[in-house]
Each structure stands twice: as C-alpha cells, then as structure tokens.
C-alpha cells in the first residue's frame, strides 16, 4: 500500500527553484510539486516553452535533476530515447519524465506522445495546461477553451475569441489503453501529488494532465492563481479523474457547481463574453458532466 501524500509528509527537498517564471505562475508550481514526488533521480525532457525558457538560463540552472530541452514535436520521443539509453547503460528502473505544455502536447507533440504510449514505454508524461502558447506570446492551442481571447483568436465584434472547445487529451491518452492517466489541478495539490505517486509506481506509460493558470496569459492577479485552479474544478469547467485498469473514475463530483460567470470574469481573456456565451459554456459543461457521470460514474 502506497502511503498517501499530503502537506505534512511531503519531501521538503526542492528540485525546482531559482527559476525565472512570472509571479503566480501555475505551471512552475506543478513542476515543483511533481518533482517532490519524483525526486532528483528523475530524468526530465522538456520541449521549447516557458518551463524550458525560465529554468535553463546558464549558469542558473533551476532543475536539480538531469534535464534535456527537446525539439518541440518530440518530448515523448526524447523521453523514450533517454529511458532506452539509461537501460543500455545498466541503470535499473530509470525514471524518464516528460513535461510539456498544452501546445507541445495536444498540437505538435501528439504524434510522439501517441507513439510512446502505444509502445508501452515505461515513462511519465505530465502536460501542464495553461490553455495557450504562453512562451511565444499567448497564441491559441488545441487546449484553448471556447471563448478565450488570445493573440491569434482576438475578441472582436464578429468573433468572440476562440471558437473551438478544448481537445480531450485525457481521454485521448486513455483511449490508447494506457497503464495510468489522470487529470489534476494545482488548486488540488494533494490530489495531484498522489496521482504523480501512482504514475511513478505504475508499470507502463502514465499521463497526467494538470490545469495550471497563467496570470500573464489569462490576465488575472498573480495572487489568485491557486484560487482559480480550485474554482475551475468547483465550477465544473475542469474535472479530477483517473483512468486505471481500463476504467475511468471521477475523483470529485461537486453537488452544485459554483457560478461560471464569476469565475470567468476574473480573467481578462473572458471579459468580452456575453451572457449568451456564458450560458453556452455552462451548457457545454453540463453535456460533458452528463456524459462523464453516465459513463464513469
């Protein structure tokens, strides 16, 4: 039986510190928490993105771990190569971990991720989802939600931000018959820590998709990052779930959802939305939950 992790028994050692991320960065918090579980023995692969840009600034290398910056499309491929290389060197049970953002995962990186899961590679892939390409200046990705304004889905009179919904990366990963997949949010850190622990222990590929607000890209105060990440789960716009042994499971089923409008209006990227669109977002949420409760309940 694996010991449940919480704020009291979590490792005090830091493996990710001294980085140059913005104040209130959600993504860097996800990395910091994950590495407390994975430890300094994990070998990290990160593609181009904020986390690479803020942590590999010579001589202030922010990772205590061995880490590699990969070509954009290839986080999971490089992580595969690292695992194979370490095995060839006689390393027992090497822990190869990929960290990539939403664009690096759902858009350009999905091919190599799919390949690695399909091969049954023993590796962990953590998608830190801040819902747009933030490092290059807030461009829409496949994980940008409906209605969000980005620099390539500007909110104008005719088109009110992003017209597509988020790609279901968690379910796409699960559809491979993956050993372990989960969703998480930095608003629920204990849940995340224990999911990382499960990913570490599982025998095969593991995928964790974590929701990480971005004050710079979303236009919110840096002090409410964690609040938003909690609220998004409480409003039902994001969900905490797992896929294990071929079964889906919801970890949290809010009895009543918190109001969506208040949550959205705290973020500049949604401020242009009309009541009609906010209702549309609620309807999309309800449809999603109806399906999840029916199929995974």
């Amino acid at each position: 039986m694996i010991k449940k992790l919480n704020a009291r028994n979590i490792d005090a050692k830091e493996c990710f510190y001294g980085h140059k991320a913005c104040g209130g960065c959600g993504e860097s918090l996800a990395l910091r928490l994950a590495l407390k579980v994975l430890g300094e023995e994990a070998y990290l692969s990160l593609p181009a993105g904020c986390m690479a840009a803020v942590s590999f600034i010579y001589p202030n290398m922010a990772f205590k771990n061995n880490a590699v910056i990969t070509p954009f499309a290839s986080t999971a491929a490089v992580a595969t190569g690292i695992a194979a290389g370490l095995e060839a060197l006689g390393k027992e049970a090497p822990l190869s971990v990929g960290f990539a953002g939403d664009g690096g995962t759902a858009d350009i990186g999905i091919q190599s991720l799919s390949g690695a899961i399909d091969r049954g590679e023993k590796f962990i892939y953590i998608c830190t989802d801040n819902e747009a390409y933030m490092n290059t200046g807030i461009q829409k990705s496949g994980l940008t939600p409906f209605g969000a304004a980005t620099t390539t889905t500007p909110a104008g009179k005719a088109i009110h931000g992003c017209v597509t919904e988020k790609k279901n990366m968690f379910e796409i990963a699960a559809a491979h018959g993956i050993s372990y997949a989960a969703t998480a949010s930095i608003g629920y850190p204990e849940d995340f820590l224990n999911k990382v622990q499960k990913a570490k222990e599982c025998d095969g590929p593991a995928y964790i998709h974590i929701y990480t607000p971005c004050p710079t890209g979303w236009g919110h105060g840096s002090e409410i990052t964690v609040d938003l990440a909690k609220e998004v789960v409480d409003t039902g716009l994001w969900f905490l779930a797992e896929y294990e042994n071929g079964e889906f499971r919801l970890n949290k089923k809010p009895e009543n959802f918190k109001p969506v409008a208040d949550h959205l209006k705290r973020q500049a990227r949604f401020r242009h939305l009309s009541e009609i669109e906010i209702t549309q977002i609620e309807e999309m949420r309800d449809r999603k939950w109806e399906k999840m409760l029916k199929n995974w309940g």
Partner: protein
Amino acid sequence: MSKSVLMKGNEVLAEAAIRAGCTHYFGYPITPQNEIPAYMSKEMPKRGGCFLQAESEIAAINMVFGASGAGARVMTSSSSPGLSLKQEGISYLAGAELPCVVVNMMRGGPGLGGIAGSQADYFQATRGGGNGDYRTIVLAPGNVQEIADLTVQAFDLADKYRMVVMILGDGYLGQMSEPVILPEPDVKPVPKPWAVSGAKGREPNKVMSLRLTPDDYLEKHNIHLQELYKKVEGEVTQSEAYMTDDADYLIVSYGTSSRIARKAVKMLRNEGVKVGLFRPVTLWPFPMKELHDLSKKVKKVLTVEMSAGQMLEDVNIAVNGVTEVDFLGKLGGALPEANEIVKIVKSYG
C-alpha cells in the same frame, strides 16, 4: 502618394501581403515572428481572407501546399527551427511547381538556439533546404520599407515562375519599427490553368511531386526545373551598390548586418577612406556578375554577415580570385559593430 506610417517589420510584412492579394495564411507560433500570425488573425477575417493557425509548422506548410494547389495566393511564416520543419513541404512545393511565399525571420541556432536575430540560415534558404535538386527565390530586405516592397514582389515572382519565394529577414528586422509607405493594393491575378480548381468540363489536373513512370519522367522534370532556374537567374537578380564608384575597398553584406556596414562606410568616408557597400537583395539568384565586376576594381572585399561564413561562399564564387576576400562573422545572434568594421577596413591601408 500614401502617407508614411510607423510600423513594426512583422506587421508591415503581413499588411503588405494582404495588399498584394494574399488570401490564405497558415501560421504557427514561434518567436520572433509572432506579430505576423497575430496581425493576420485580426485582419484576414475582416478582409475576406483566411487565417488558420496550424497544429505544427509541418501542418502549416502542407496547408500552403493544398491552398497553392487549389490556386490561392498563399503565405506562411516562421523562424529558423520552424523553417527546418517546413523544409520537406517546401521540397514538395518545388517538386510540384506550386507558387507560395514563405517567410523566415531568422534567429540564432543550431537547434532551439536563441530568439535574437541571426543570418545563419543562408545555406538552408539558398541551397534548397529540403531534398532534391531545387531552388527557391530568396529575397533579403534591409529595412522595413523594403519588407513591404519585397513582400509584394514575392507574390508576383512566385506566381510568375511557379516557385516558392522566401523572404529571408531576421528577428531584428521583424521587431524593428520604422516609417514605411505601404503599397497600394494592386493584385495582378495570374491565370492558373494547372490548379486543382474543379475538373468540370475539362481534363482533371494532377498536383504532385511523385514521378515514377515512364523511366525518364523524373529526369525530364528535373531538366525542366533547372532550365526554369537558369531563366530566373537571368531575370530576377537584384542588388544595391552604395558609394562603390571610386571605392578601393568593398564591403559585402545583406539584411540587418548591411545596415551596420552602411554606417561603417559613412564613418570611413568621413575619414577619407574610399570604401563602398555591395548589398545583395536576392540571395538566390545571387548577383554574381554584379559583384564580380565590382570586385575587379577594388583592392579587397570584406564580407560581413551574422553567421560563420555562409554568404561568404557565394562571395568567393563571385569574386573568383580576382581580389582578396576577408570575412567578419558574428555568431548566435550577436551583431557586428560599425567601429569593428571601421578598424578592419583601416587595417587594409
């Protein structure tokens, strides 16, 4: 005449493209060219065009392949590592003789490199870049006004020769704001009877770069391409000669580095040193004859570029031993300094 406006290089490029009749733009985020997709995402829907953010550079260039095959005026833009990903698609476009405009706002490499401007993709741009025997026309603007002018030219050249035309700028030019007179919208539609525009009432068109049969089909196609490139070499070469009439020394430089070289020429002229600047505007075809003729009249040629000596190879081919060729290269996004150039040229005397 149009009024001069202050605009950023990348945005000027996007606006000039729309005015030149670009109806389709396919992009993907990468610094330092992000203002191009951002501008296109705002303007294209308003002006009846198509902006599409692809899921990768590979997808973007192949959307260009599709749109160009259908007969649209189409563009994509990226920066160095992104251009590397586009090279397969560019080779296919060249193989199928599809016109399009590809923008590379270069940054330092190799690999992910940095985000500061660089000129280290000269080889990749002028030597084909992908597989097979092909060329792309490469235009190298030296200032924001020229970004506007060459963008319009790029679309016309692409359609005229059915070739990929690359605009080779760099991060400094893309991010630089300068006064610019934007071109008047002037679309010169070119008939495209080869396009896959619907085969009703005619034989269907095939767009392809695969040529398996009969035996000599691919060879013949390549001979045809080489003849086309010869014709282009004779027709589209552009360059600028600045203070070269009485020059003892000649600096050869393009794009951002030519701006610094021009300043060095002015500084040296103030001190009585007879020096001039030769600036290739087309990097392929390279202005071989123009440079060769000038080099015969000078004691020494100094090549200045932000790479380890890529254009230097073309300079050496052009000069062909008639005078000595010296080199100043800056690597990884570093810029040459005018004082440095002045010092080197003075050491020749």
